């Protein structure tokens, strides 16, 4: 029964979404209060019914209801409960239900917490949100019904793809969708503003928390995905510039630009038309990502099973959404009143530089991702654009970005004194340059990239710390006074500082792990030892184990440092029984500063095993940085001026310097 309830709930949700897209829009046009607030009820209703559908699907997975085709294909009765639940979104149909659940949740959030948004604008936002929901619910109902039954019912399911039976990947899609779909709200705000033909500074203030929340989740989702790729794929790499990775990275880049331009829109009542364009582009890139991943038009190392018909449907959604939004933009944007002119050397000037660099970087990634498709379409051969392209285009754009990121928080609004700011930063600059010089001096291999990367990381972390230290007058005032200033500092300023410093942490991690990674590939017999980066890794042997739904060859490695055993590592080669699919589980010894990464290969038939050992210095910093960025976003979100629905304070406390993040 539960499958029919779920299917029915999806149909009801689609009908409610239709009402949600029509009534509040009409209400806003006629200034009809009841029609406008009907949208709030319908948005809540749509969320409740999608939740019922999602619950029904989850129930079918948890109880292993093998009369449902989707459960048969993606679950197995012998699977741990966690993976029965995560199996719900470990497949195309179920993940689309999750997508709609999050989409309707965001729409409902606008209804629940959008009390401070002007009623007309809010009604239009909810209507656009309903329209997007309708498109995706129709997509599920017409092409990807997760509730299809099978007859006769098979005795057991085929199991979830073993590579997805992993905690990292279990939570990667929900986080990524919170990001992707979160940008649907900023998109709806943009469309609603264009329909109203009016954008004021308040628009920027309303959009910022949504952009911030979506950006934070997308950051965490991408970080988790790359961490998973790192430990699960057994290549020791964390980012491959694969089309699927780029698909999530492009909205992140443009979303970052939006996050910053919305600040200018709010504070200076400028860049409004540009912010609207960015909001449209961010969600368009999210949809493009969905299309690329689901349609299989691009060859990728990691994707869903793909289906051209579904791809076509998403392409249609993409074309209507993007085409319609851009047409509306071209028609309405010229009528929006622009803000005043301002000087290049100022806070807003620095934020614009951020915007230009982020969008241009996103363009180069977009070009690299789609170029093979274009070449293939014109019959010019089959090519792939690999890491050398992205390293040669993306990284040079990030260097000036990071330089500017160090300076920007010191610049006041309207008009700044660049020389004065540089003078205050000379100590940090000196340290960064000294570090870079030391790297060139010590290391001759790849010295330029290493020196630049480390110098930039030191600059960014140092400048962020220096700015905060100056603001709270650390060591220049009694500790009590500094503490008081620190606690009085707006949360959004803390969030900015943490997120900027976190970017420096990520840069350091990428640079050091890329340049100083060492590896050993060899065969080892029990009793053999290998030396790597100051560690001695002894191979104790292999034994067969059976755990739950897989059988494994488990290697036993003893790590010693200076003759003292410090750790034991147990890499595995697993064979998942229902599907007879093998997977490799690397064993990783991680400290805050490095990873020791051991992969067990196949036996060589002479009593030994092929073994791959890596030492990846500073690689944990990449994910520590991603988590810090997320925390920075969350801390900023708790700022009372961002808090959705919080009353505006009439007077702001005087702060020593302009303090917005």
């Amino acid at each position, binding site marked *: 029964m539960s499958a029919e309830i779920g299917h029915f709930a999806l149909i009801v949700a689609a009908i409610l979404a239709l009402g949600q897209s029509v009534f509040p829009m009409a209400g806003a046009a006629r200034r009809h209060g009841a029609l406008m607030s009907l949208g709030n009820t319908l948005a809540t209703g749509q969320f409740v019914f999608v939740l019922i559908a999602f619950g029904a699907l989850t129930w079918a997975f948890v109880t292993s209801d093998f009369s449902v085709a989707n459960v048969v294909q993606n679950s197995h009765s012998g699977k741990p409960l966690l993976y029965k639940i995560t199996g719900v979104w470990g497949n195309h149909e179920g993940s689309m239900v999750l997508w709609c659940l999050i989409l309707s949740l965001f729409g409902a959030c606008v209804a629940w917490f959008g009390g401070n948004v002007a009623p007309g604008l809010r009604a239009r936002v909810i209507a656009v949100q309903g329209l997007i929901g309708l498109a995706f619910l129709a997509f599920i109902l017409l092409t990807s019904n997760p509730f299809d039954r099978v007859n006769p019912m098979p005795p057991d399911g085929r199991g979830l*793809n073993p*590579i*997805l039976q992993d905690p990292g990947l279990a939570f990667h899609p929900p986080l990524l969708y919170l990001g992707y779909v979160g940008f649907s709200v900023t998109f709806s705000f943009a469309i609603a503003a264009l329909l109203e033909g009016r954008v004021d500074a308040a628009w920027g203030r309303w959009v910022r928390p949504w952009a911030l929340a979506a950006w934070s989740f997308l950051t965490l989702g991408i970080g988790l995905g790359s961490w998973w790729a790192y430990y699960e794929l*057994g290549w020791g790499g964390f980012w491959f510039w694969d089309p699927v990775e780029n698909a999530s990275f492009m909205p992140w880049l443009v979303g970052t630009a939006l996050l910053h331009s919305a600040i200018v829109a709010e504070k200076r009542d400028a860049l409004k038309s540009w912010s609207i364009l960015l909001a449209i582009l961010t969600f368009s890139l999210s949809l493009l990502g969905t299309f690329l991943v689901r349609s*299989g038009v*691009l*060859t990728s*190392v*990691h*994707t869903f*099973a793909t289906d051209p018909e579904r791809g076509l449907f998403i392409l249609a959604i993409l074309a209507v959404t993007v085409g319609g939004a851009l047409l509306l933009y071209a028609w309405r944007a010229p009528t929006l009143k622009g803000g005043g002119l301002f000087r*290049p050397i100022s806070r807003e*000037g620095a934020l*614009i*530089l951020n915007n*230009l*660099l982020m969008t*241009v*970087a996103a*363009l*180069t990634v977009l*070009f*690299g991702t789609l*170029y093979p498709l274009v070449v293939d379409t014109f019959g010019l*051969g*089959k*090519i*792939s*654009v*690999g*890491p*050398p*392209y*992205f*390293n*040669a*285009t993306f990284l*040079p*754009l990030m260097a000036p970005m990071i330089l500017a990121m160090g300076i920007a928080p010191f610049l006041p609004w309207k008009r700044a004194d660049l020389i004065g700011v540089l003078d205050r930063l000379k100590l940090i600059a000196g340290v960064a340059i000294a570090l870079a010089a030391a790297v060139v001096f010590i290391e001759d291999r790849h010295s330029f990239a290493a020196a630049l990367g480390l110098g930039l990381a030191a600059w960014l972390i140092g400048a962020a710390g220096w700015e905060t230290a100056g603001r709270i007058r650390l060591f220049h005032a009694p500790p009590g006074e500094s503490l008081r200033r620190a606690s009085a500092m707006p949360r959004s300023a803390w969030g900015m500082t943490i997120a900027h410093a976190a970017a420096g942490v990520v840069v350091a991690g990428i640079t050091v792990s890329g340049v100083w990674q060492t590896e050993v*590939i*060899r*065969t080892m017999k029990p009793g053999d030892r290998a030396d790597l980066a100051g560690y001695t890794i002894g191979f104790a042997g292999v034994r067969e184990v059976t755990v739950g739904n897989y059988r494994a060859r488990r290697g036993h490695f003893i790590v010693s440092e200076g003759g003292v055993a410090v750790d034991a590592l147990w890499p595995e*080669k697993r064979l998942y029984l229902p*599907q007879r*699919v*093998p*997977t*490799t589980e690397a064993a990783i010894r991680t400290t805050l500063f490095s990873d020791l990464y051991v*992969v067990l*290969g*196949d036996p*060589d*038939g*002479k009593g*030994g095993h*092929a*073994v*791959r050992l890596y030492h990846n210095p500073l690689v944990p910093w990449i994910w520590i940085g991603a988590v810090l960025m997320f925390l920075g976003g969350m801390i900023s979100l708790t700022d009372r001026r961002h808090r959705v629905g919080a009353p505006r304070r009439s007077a702001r406390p005087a702060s020593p310097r302009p303090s917005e993040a």
Partner: protein
Amino acid sequence: MTFLAVGLCLLGMAVALVLAALDDGVTFFYTPSKVATEAVPAGQPFRLGGLVETGSRKTLDDGVSVAFRVTDCIRSLSVVYKGVLPDLFREGQGVVAIGRLEESGTFRADTILAKHDENYMPKDLADQLKEQGQWHRDGGGEPCPEAKS
């Protein structure tokens, strides 16, 4: 105006970077037959796609290098790879190897790709095999019916 100028400069810089990077950032995809007809020079990186020839896989004396032949059912090419093969590498199944030809005519792979899917057939490879009229995989089974080895 200043911002427009900065923006255009950045865009120009990006275009220059893109054009420069396209020279060596792009790798072509060839099947063994294409490798022969295009006369790919040794040392030039490209992606080799095909099926792992049944019975061709062997471990070399160092214990960690493997050699196998990649075939498109017309021609085949021998490949050497040092490292741990992906889990889904199987004889008779599709594979993509990234690397370059050596003077001896052997393909030395730096990376071997196999997807998280037991029926891995890269789209590029499937298209090229269809183009060559060598597509026999509707419904599975032996990819090259009159397997040459």
